[in-house]
């Protein structure tokens, strides 16, 4: 069965520093890939998505992600982190033969130091 792995449970970065959150998926074909952000007690907000085409996708709030088929990865990046970026980040996948349901990774909690 397909799965999504986020190896880092918790990451702390200094404000203004760059950020990379890792995501690996396990699936034979190219899935549809997503990054969501969740602030404490809040819902899920879509940051960006990859369906096909250009492997570098731009999202909201200055985030971008790069799909690398050879590494089965879809890492999220931001060049300069702001304190308001502190939140939980979920990578998710949808596959054609699974009826459209999202399969989420375990999440990465981001803390931002002043």
């Amino acid at each position, binding site marked *: 069965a397909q799965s999504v792995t986020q190896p880092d449970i918790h990451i702390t970065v200094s404000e203004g520093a760059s950020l990379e959150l890792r995501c690996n998926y396990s699936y034979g074909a190219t899935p549809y890939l997503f990054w969501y952000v969740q602030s404490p007690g809040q819902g899920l907000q879509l940051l960006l998505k990859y*369906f096909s085409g250009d492997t570098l996708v731009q999202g909201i709030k200055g985030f971008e992600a790069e799909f690398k088929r050879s590494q089965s990865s879809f890492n999220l990046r931001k060049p300069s982190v702001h304190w308001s970026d502190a939140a939980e980040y979920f990578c998710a996948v949808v596959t054609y033969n699974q009826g459209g349901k999202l399969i989420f990774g375990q999440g990465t909690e981001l803390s931002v130091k002043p």
Partner: protein
Amino acid sequence: AAGVIQSPRHLIKEKRETATLKCYPIPRHDTVYWYQQGPGQDPQFLISFYEKMQSDKGSIPDRFSAQQFSDYHSELNMSSLELGDSALYFCASSRGGFGPLGYNEQFFGPGTRLTVL
């Protein structure tokens, strides 16, 4: 723009009680998904409906049932509540699941936080 509405936003119940969560999808969306997010966990798919018919089922307990009504809103009914049912329950809606043009994006509601005491 209209978003997915979930009610209630917060619900407190005792063990063995029942609960009903409601989801109102974005207008003209015909597909509803339910997810459960336990404390410190990732969201887990429960069940989905397309055009008022159940389309997929995940790890949903037999104590839970759900349906989608003629106006496309959906209700998740939970009986014999257990402490472990305490979670954030999300509803998401889309216009179709996987169609001829591919995947149709899911839009999430704010969630219902259920606490079982």
